[in-house]
C-alpha cells in the first residue's frame, strides 16, 4: 500500500513525460484495435443468440431434399406441437418490368411459428407486423423484386405457370439473419398455389421443411425420438444447429479480423518495450536514491511497476472506449450483411482487451523494471556507475512468448496461429533487413548532401537501431494498407480484364430433357450461338471404396457438407478443353465399362483416389463404378462444370435436367425474358450480377480489414514517437549545441526534417517493395494473371511514408527545437 501511494505520487509528475504518453498510447492503439473487432463480433453473436429460434422460424425444423413423409407432421400433432411446412427453391419470376431469379418460399398459414414477418406497401412505406404468411393467390416480395421486375403491390407476377397478385413488400423475415444483398431476393407465396406453378420437378433444387414449435420438453422429446429414424437426405435442426453455420462464418471472419488487429498489437509491443526502457532509464537515479533511503529491491520494483500499471490501465481503458466507438463504424459498414438489428455488445471484449494490455505490460515492461532492482546504490555518489543490463533478447523472450500465445489464441488453432506468427516474423524480419540495408546505403549519400541535410542523414546513421525500428514498424503498417487499397483494386481490375469478352455471363438451369431441341432452336432463331447443354443428375455419394460416407467422418466443414448433400453428376464421352487430366486416364471412345472422373479438389477434400469405387444413390437406386481419372477444372471459364462425371451409359437411365451457360450481349435482356416466358421452369442466373455482388461483398469486407489496419498505422506512429522519445535528451542536447554554435531555427528544422523524411521514405520503400512482392505472388499463384508493375504503389508508399513521418517527426521533436539552449544543456548534463 505504501509503495502504491508513493508510486501514485511519483506518477503525477512522471505521467507528463514522453515515455509515459507513449506507453499509454501504445496500449490504447493495441487494445482499441482488438476490442473493435471483439465488440463488433460480440454484437453479431448477440443478435444470433437473441433471435436463435426466430432464425429457424420455429423451435426445431425437419429438413429434407424430398417431400417429408406424413409421420413427421402426424407425430408432432400427436405430441401437441404446432407445425408449419415450407418449400423453398430458386426460380425465375417475371413481372411487368422484367424477369429475375428469386428464392421462392411457399408457406402454410401457420408460418412462422416463431418471430414475425414485417411487411409494407412499398419499400419506402412504414412497415407493420404481419399475421401469418400470404393468402392463396397472392405473393409477398422482397424489395429488390419491386425494382427489378416491377413487382409493386397490386401488380400480377408469374411464378412458373401460376399468376400471383403482389400483396406486400417484405421488410423483415425472421428466418434469415445474413442477407447477402438479396442475391436471389425472396418471394413468399402460399403453399396452396405451389402445384399450380408446376415448378417442383425432377432435378429442381427444392428443400422441404417442417417447422415444429411448442413446450420445450415436448420439443426435446420429439427431437430425441424422431432423430434415429431419419432417412437419407433428412435432418433435424434445432436452434443450436441453425445458429452454428452462421456462427462458423462469423467465427472465421472474427478470426481473420482478429489476426489483422493483432498486427497493431505486435507493433505496439515495440513501442511499449521502448517506452518502458526509457522509463526505467529515467528512474535509475531515483531508484538508487530510494535504495539509499532504505527501500528494498522489491519496493523499488513495486513502486515503478505500480506506475507502469496505472499508465497501462489508463491506456487500456481509453483503448476499450476507442474500440467501442470504432466498432460502430465497422457495424455501419457491414450492416448490409445483416437483416437484423445488432444489439449492444457485452463486456467480454473489454476483458479480452484487458488481457492484451496485461500481456503487453508484463511481457515488455518487466525486463527494464527488473533492471532497476539492480541499480548500484553507489550511483548517488557517482553518477557514472553503470547499471548491469540484462541481455535484451533473453529478457524479452517472455514477451515474445506471450505475444505468440496471443496470436495462437486469436487464430483459434495452432496451425493458423503458427502461420500468422511466421507471417508477422517474416514481414518484420524482411522489413528490418531491407531497412538496415537502406539506412546504410542512404547514409553514404551524406557526404554529397549539404548543411542540415548532412547532419540529418548523419543522425539517421548514428541512431541506426532506433531508425531501423521506425522504418520496420511504419513499413509493415503501410504495407498492409497499400496491399488492401492500391494493390487489391489493381489486381481485381487486371483479373477482370483478363477474361475474354464473350465469356459466358448467364447460366440457364433446370432445362428438362424434352425441352432440349426447343431451347437449342430458340437460340438459333435469335441468331445466337447454340450453347452447349450438359446433363445433370442429382445423386448422393454413399460409399468410397466400400466404406460408407457419413458427415461425421470428416473434420473439414466443406467435406461434411458434401457428404451430406446431393451432388450434381453429369456424363460425357469426350474430355472438354477446359478440363485437364492430372491422374489416371480419360475413358476411350466406345468404352463400355462404367467409370468416373473426379475433380481433383473435391477428390482431395473427400480423400478419393484413382482406383476407388464410388457408390451412388440416385432416386432410390444404387450403383457403383471405379474412379479412373482425376481432372483439373478451370473454374473461372464460367462454364458449367462438374465435380463428378460418369462415362456414357451409366446415368442416362436416370431422370436428368440440363444446364448451359451462354454469353448474353449487353442490351439483349429480352432474350432471357422470352426464354423464361416460353420455358417457365427454366431458371437463368445472371453471373455479372453475382460477380457484382461478390465484388461489393469483398469491397465491404476489405474496407473492414482496412479499417482494422488503420490501427496498425497508428501503432507505427506510436513506435515513431517512442523512438523519438528514446532519443529526446540527445536531440535536445544536440539542438542546444547547434543553437549555441549559431544555428538558425530553420536550419534546425531542416536537420530534423532530413532525418524523418529519410525514415518515412525508407518505410514507404519497404512497404511498397513488400506490397509489390506479395502482389506478384498473389497474381501468379492465386489469380493466374501475369503481374504488371504499377507505379502507383511505390508512389503512394513514398508519399504517405515521407509526408506522414516527416510531419509526425517534426511534431515529436518540437521540444528539441524550442528549448532554449542553456536550459537544454543544463537539463541534460
Amino acid at each position: 500500500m505504501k509503495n502504491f501511494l508513493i508510486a501514485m505520487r511519483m506518477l503525477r509528475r512522471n505521467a507528463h513525460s514522453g515515455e509515459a504518453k507513449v506507453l499509454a498510447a501504445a496500449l490504447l492503439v493495441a487494445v482499441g484495435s482488438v476490442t473493435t473487432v471483439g465488440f463488433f463480433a460480440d454484437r453479431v453473436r448477440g443478435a444470433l443468440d437473441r433471435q436463435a429460434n426466430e432464425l429457424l422460424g420455429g423451435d426445431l425444423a425437419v429438413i429434407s431434399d424430398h417431400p417429408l413423409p406424413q409421420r413427421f407432421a402426424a407425430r408432432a400433432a400427436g405430441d401437441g406441437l404446432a407445425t408449419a411446412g415450407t418449400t423453398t427453391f430458386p426460380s425465375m419470376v417475371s413481372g411487368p418490368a422484367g424477369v429475375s431469379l428469386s428464392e421462392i418460399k411457399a408457406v402454410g398459414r401457420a408460418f412462422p411459428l416463431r418471430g414475425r414477418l414485417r411487411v409494407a406497401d412499398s419499400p419506402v412505406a412504414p412497415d407493420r407486423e404481419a399475421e401469418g404468411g400470404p393468402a392463396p393467390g397472392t405473393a409477398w416480395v422482397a424489395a429488390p423484386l419491386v425494382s427489378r421486375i416491377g413487382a409493386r403491390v397490386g401488380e400480377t407476377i408469374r411464378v412458373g405457370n401460376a399468376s400471383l397478385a403482389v400483396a406486400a413488400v417484405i421488410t423483415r423475415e425472421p428466418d434469415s439473419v445474413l442477407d447477402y444483398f438479396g442475391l436471389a431476393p425472396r418471394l413468399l407465396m402460399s403453399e396452396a398455389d405451389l402445384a399450380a406453378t408446376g415448378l417442383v420437378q425432377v432435378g429442381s433444387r427444392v428443400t422441404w421443411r417442417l417447422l415444429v414449435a411448442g413446450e420445450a420438453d415436448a420439443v426435446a422429446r420429439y427431437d430425441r425420438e424422431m432423430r434415429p429414424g431419419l432417412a437419407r437426405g433428412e435432418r433435424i435442426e434445432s436452434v443450436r444447429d441453425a445458429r452454428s453455420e452462421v456462427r462458423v462464418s462469423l467465427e472465421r471472419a472474427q478470426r481473420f479480423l482478429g489476426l489483422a488487429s493483432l498486427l497493431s498489437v505486435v507493433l505496439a509491443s515495440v513501442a511499449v518495450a521502448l517506452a518502458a526502457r526509457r522509463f526505467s532509464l529515467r528512474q535509475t537515479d531515483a531508484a538508487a536514491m530510494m535504495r539509499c533511503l532504505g527501500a528494498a529491491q522489491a519496493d523499488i520494483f513495486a513502486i515503478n511497476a505500480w506506475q507502469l500499471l496505472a499508465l497501462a490501465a489508463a491506456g487500456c481503458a481509453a483503448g476499450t472506449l476507442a474500440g467501442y466507438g470504432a466498432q460502430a463504424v465497422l457495424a455501419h459498414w457491414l450492416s448490409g450483411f445483416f437483416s437484423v438489428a445488432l444489439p449492444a455488445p457485452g463486456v467480454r471484449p473489454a476483458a479480452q482487451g484487458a488481457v492484451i494490455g496485461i500481456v503487453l505490460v508484463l511481457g515488455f515492461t518487466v525486463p527494464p523494471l527488473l533492471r532497476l532492482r539492480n541499480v548500484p546504490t553507489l550511483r548517488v555518489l557517482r553518477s557514472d556507475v553503470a547499471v548491469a543490463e540484462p541481455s535484451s533478447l533473453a529478457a524479452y523472450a517472455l514477451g515474445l512468448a506471450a505475444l505468440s500465445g496471443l496470436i495462437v489464441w486469436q487464430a483459434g488453432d495452432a496451425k493458423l496461429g503458427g502461420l500468422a506468427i511466421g507471417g508477422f516474423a517474416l514481414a518484420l524480419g524482411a522489413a528490418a533487413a531491407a531497412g538496415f540495408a537502406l539506412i546504410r546505403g542512404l547514409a553514404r549519400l551524406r557526404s554529397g548532401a549539404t548543411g542540415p541535410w548532412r547532419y540529418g542523414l548523419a543522425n539517421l546513421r548514428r541512431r541506426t537501431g532506433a531508425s531501423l525500428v521506425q522504418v520496420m514498424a511504419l513499413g509493415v503498417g503501410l504495407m498492409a494498407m497499400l496491399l488492401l487499397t492500391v494493390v487489391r483494386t489493381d489486381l481485381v481490375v487486371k483479373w477482370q480484364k483478363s477474361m475474354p469478352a464473350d465469356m459466358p455471363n448467364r447460366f440457364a438451369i433446370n432445362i428438362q430433357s424434352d425441352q432440349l431441341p426447343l431451347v437449342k432452336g430458340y437460340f438459333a432463331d435469335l441468331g445466337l450461338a447454340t450453347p452447349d447443354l450438359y446433363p445433370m443428375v442429382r445423386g448422393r455419394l454413399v460409399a468410397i471404396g466400400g466404406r460408407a460416407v457419413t458427415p461425421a467422418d470428416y473434420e473439414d466443414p466443406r467435406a461434411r457438407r458434401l457428404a451430406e448433400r446431393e451432388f450434381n453428376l453429369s456424363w460425357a464421352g469426350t474430355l472438354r478443353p477446359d478440363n485437364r487430366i492430372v491422374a489416371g486416364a480419360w475413358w476411350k471412345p466406345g468404352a463400355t465399362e462404367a467409370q468416373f472422373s473426379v475433380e481433383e479438389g473435391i477428390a482431395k477434400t473427400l480423400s478419393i483416389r484413382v482406383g476407388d469405387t464410388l457408390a451412388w444413390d440416385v432416386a432410390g437406386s444404387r450403383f457403383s463404378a471405379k474412379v479412373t481419372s482425376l481432372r483439373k477444372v478451370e473454374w473461372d471459364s464460367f462454364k458449367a462444370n462438374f465435380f463428378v462425371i460418369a462415362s456414357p451409359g451409366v446415368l442416362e437411365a436416370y431422370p436428368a435436367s440440363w444446364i448451359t451457360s451462354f454469353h448474353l450481349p449487353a442490351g439483349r435482356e429480352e432474350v432471357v425474358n422470352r426464354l423464361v416466358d416460353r420455358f417457365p421452369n427454366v431458371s437463368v442466373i445472371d453471373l455479372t450480377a453475382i460477380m457484382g455482388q461478390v465484388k461489393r461483398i469483398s469491397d465491404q469486407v476489405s474496407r473492414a480489414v482496412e479499417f482494422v489496419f488503420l490501427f496498425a498505422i497508428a501503432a507505427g506512429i506510436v513506435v515513431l514517437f517512442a523512438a523519438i522519445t528514446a532519443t529526446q535528451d540527445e536531440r535536445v542536447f544536440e539542438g542546444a549545441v547547434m543553437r549555441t554554435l549559431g544555428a538558425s531555427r530553420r536550419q534546425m528544422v531542416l536537420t530534423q526534417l532530413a532525418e524523418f523524411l529519410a525514415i518515412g521514405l525508407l518505410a514507404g520503400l519497404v512497404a511498397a517493395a513488400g506490397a509489390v512482392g506479395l502482389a506478384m505472388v498473389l497474381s501468379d499463384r492465386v489469380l493466374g494473371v501475369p503481374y504488371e508493375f504499377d507505379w502507383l504503389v511505390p508512389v503512394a508508399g513514398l508519399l504517405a511514408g515521407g509526408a506522414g513521418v516527416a510531419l509526425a517527426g517534426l511534431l515529436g521533436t518540437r521540444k528539441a527545437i524550442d528549448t532554449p539552449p542553456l536550459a537544454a544543456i543544463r537539463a541534460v548534463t
Partner: protein
Amino acid sequence: MNATSEVERETAGVAGRSAIVRAEGLTKQVSTPDHDLVIVRDVALDVRAGESVAIVGASGSGKSTLLGLLAGLDVPSAGRVWIDGEDLFAKDEDGRARLRGRLVGFVFQSFQLLPALTALENVMLPLELAGAADAAASAALVLGQVGLADRLGHYPRQLSGGEQQRVAVARAFATQPKLLFADEPTGNLDSATGAQVIELLFRMNRERGTTLVLVTHDEALAGRCDRRVGIAAGVVSA
C-alpha cells in the same frame, strides 16, 4: 561552542561503549585494463555515537569511496564494517537497505531529490518506506525546522540550490537517524548558502544527538567537526 563541549563530554562519558561505526581492514580495489587499482587500503576506523567526523582529502584521494563503503552503498574487496553493532556486509543488499532506512540519513553534494516529488513528498519518502504512520505531518514539521514551511508543494526544479539542499537535510533527519553521512554537502553551493546549510546540519546534529560523518575538502566545515580523518591515496591517517 558550549554545545560542542557538551557533546564532547557526553562522548567522553560513553568512551567504553562500542562505536556506532567501526571499520576493519576496509579495502576497495578495482581492475583496470593495465593494472589493479587500490582506491581504499586497509582502513580501520571507529566513530562513536554523537561524534562528528570529517573525512578530508584531495580530489581522487578515495574519500567518497570510503564514505560509500562505510554506508554500505558499495561492497569492499576486503574488510568489514559494523553499524550500531551490525555487520553490514554480512547482510544482502536488501538487508543493508533496511538497516540504512532504520539508522542512517544521507546528504549529498548534488542533493539527489526525486524530481517527480514535491519537497514535502521527498521528505515523506524515507518515512513511508519505513512504514511511518504520520509521514506527511512529520515531514512538514522537519521542513518547518529547516525554514521551508512555505515551500512544501514546490518541486525540486522550482527551488534554489540552497533550498534543495535544505530539503535534502530535512529528508536526512526526517527518520531521526542515529547516523548521518554527508558527501560534500556544500560542494554545489555558494559560500553564504553553504554556511547556512552547515549551520543547519550542526544544529540538527546537536538537537537530535545524531552522529555526523562527512566528506569534505572545505576546511571551515572540517574545522567544526570533533575529529578529522585525513585520507591520501586510499590510506587513512588520523
